[in-house]
């Protein structure tokens, strides 16, 4: 299919939601490709849940349009292709996991209860028996929420904080489950504050701030943007920098503040230290830096216009932890 004709699993056109005169979501243009795992990131109150609620039909947009698989959101066929877990898990506390699933199955008009058993098996809740949901741990409730979302074999899964309250094993299981579902051809929108986890599965990202979609980016572009740099702390930049540029004229460098030099696209760092030390430039510290999703997100929040600008600024220097080299004991003094 040509790019121009590509249908998106979710496409919002100038989606807006206003509460008490304040825009919780402001002219949001979101595009989620089919078969993608879309990580939806934003601070608390940024408008993530409101956006997801509008996509699921739980909140009415004040303005704008939502298209699901090329059809308008109020199309019943499109609605049936969505499975969702928004905010807290919606459950009947005095019923068992199976009964909750049967309730939703009936609500959907499913007659085949084998789907209920399949959802219980996938989420590891098959052996909960008659135990009432109110006696479930938070993680079990969360899994049941995912099971409810999976019922009816939806093409689009919308999961708002699906790993909240899960133990590490549970998080891993959900991650594996989402990856498997994506391989099966499902589109998944996940919002989570655990960005490390999100970065392990997401193929695309959308960053929202104060109701505005700051950026939509795919994994490859993100990796390019988060490319490594080698940072070196010296006593005299004015001497060090010409030495480096003399040795390698095409070197991409930056001096964020006095004494610090950043070198981009550097694969071998050994010669840098050697060169500086041989020329009597004192090297206090050096190491590779790689920005992860969390850092990128935080920088994007600080400077929505240009994340890289902020990243190059003072705030991007996160001390020892940011230096891979230092962590590995490569500190040169």
């Amino acid at each position, binding site marked *: 299919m040509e790019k121009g004709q590509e249908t998106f699993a979710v496409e919002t056109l100038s989606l807006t939601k206003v509460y008490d005169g304040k825009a919780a979501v402001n002219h949001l243009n979101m595009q989620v490709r089919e078969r993608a795992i879309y990580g939806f990131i934003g601070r608390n109150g940024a408008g993530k849940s409101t956006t997801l609620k509008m996509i699921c039909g739980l909140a009415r947009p004040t303005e704008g349009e939502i298209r699901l698989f090329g059809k308008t959101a109020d199309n019943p066929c499109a609605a*049936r292709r969505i499975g969702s877990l928004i905010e807290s898990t919606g459950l009947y506390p005095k019923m068992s996991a199976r009964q909750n699933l049967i309730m939703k199955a009936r609500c959907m008009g499913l007659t085949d209860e084998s789907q209920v058993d399949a959802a219980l098996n996938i989420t590891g809740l098959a052996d909960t028996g008659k135990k009432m949901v109110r006696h479930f741990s938070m993680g079990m409730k969360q899994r049941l929420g995912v099971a409810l979302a999976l019922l009816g074999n939806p093409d689009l899964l919308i999961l708002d904080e699906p790993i909240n309250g899960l133990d590490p094993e549970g998080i891993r299981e959900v991650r594996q489950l989402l990856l498997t579902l994506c391989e099966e051809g499902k589109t998944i929108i996940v919002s989570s504050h655990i960005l490390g986890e999100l970065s392990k599965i997401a193929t695309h990202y959308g960053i929202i701030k104060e109701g505005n979609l700051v950026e939509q980016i795919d994994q490859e572009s993100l990796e390019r943007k988060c490319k490594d740099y080698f940072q070196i702390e010296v006593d005299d930049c004015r001497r060090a920098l010409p030495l480096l540029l003399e040795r390698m004229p095409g070197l991409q460098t930056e001096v964020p503040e006095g004494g610090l030099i950043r070198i981009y696209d550097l694969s071998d760092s050994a010669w840098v230290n050697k060169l500086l030390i041989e020329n009597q430039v004192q090297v206090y510290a050096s190491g590779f830096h790689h920005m992860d999703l969390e850092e990128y997100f935080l920088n994007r929040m600080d400077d929505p216009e240009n994340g890289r600008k902020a990243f190059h600024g003072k705030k991007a220097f996160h001390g020892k932890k940011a230096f891979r080299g230092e962590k590995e004991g490569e500190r040169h003094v």
Partner: protein
Amino acid sequence: MFNLLRMDLYRMKRSKFIYICFACLLLVILLCYVMVYLVITPKGQEIATKIGMVEIDTGHEISLAVADEKESFNEKNALLENVTLLDMYRESNMDGGGYLVVFGIAVTLLVCGDYQGGFIKNIMTIHKERWTYIGGKLMAAGILNFLYLVLSFVFNMLMNLLFGNLVPAAPWGGLVFYLVWVWLVSMAFAALIIMLCVFSRSTAIGVTGAILLGSGLVVSILSSITNQFNLSGWTEYTLYYNITYGPSAYTSMADLRAAAVGLVFLVLYSIVAGIALMKRDI
């Protein structure tokens, strides 16, 4: 809508509150028959004396109080002369608004249960057309209403048999007519409670509303206020008034007023509830 009904029926079958509310209705009928039995039948009077409901002085002379009681017994016997099984049924639960209160509480728990646990999100994601939710709830309430009315009447019949046919059976035609319009009026009350629950999303408000509105307290208070301004006719068009004073048999077109009032309010409250649900986010 029918899928929602299937879901609600599944839930109702497994919810304790449905059975507890029904047990309350049966308990009132039972108590009603026990009281009538103790007051009307000689054996019952004997038991009443034994358990201390009637005092007898130590000198084996009937006291004035007992004489009064006996007079009262005779009066009550006379009063029961024209009472039928349907009248007993009406007196037990229906006429005081007790049925509306209990049924209203059951409807509140049926609707607010969706909101309390958040299951409403699962429902509304699938049924984006909000009217189907109101329709589904009304159908579920309608079935529950039918079962409550019919089964409690059957229990009423059984109690009458058990206590030795205290009152004669009512004509079937009148009974069916009564149950139909009572069903309509109580359905209008269910729509009112659904509307209240959709607005408030609170079980406490729903239950309080069921008690205040079902028992006629609100109507009484408003009536006493409007009476000051010679505006009293409106009470005849309230659900409480109609369920209390509605006809036991069809004699003229005027007897259809209760059913008409029920139908009008059923439609009105359903529309308001639907609009409220559409306007508000989940």
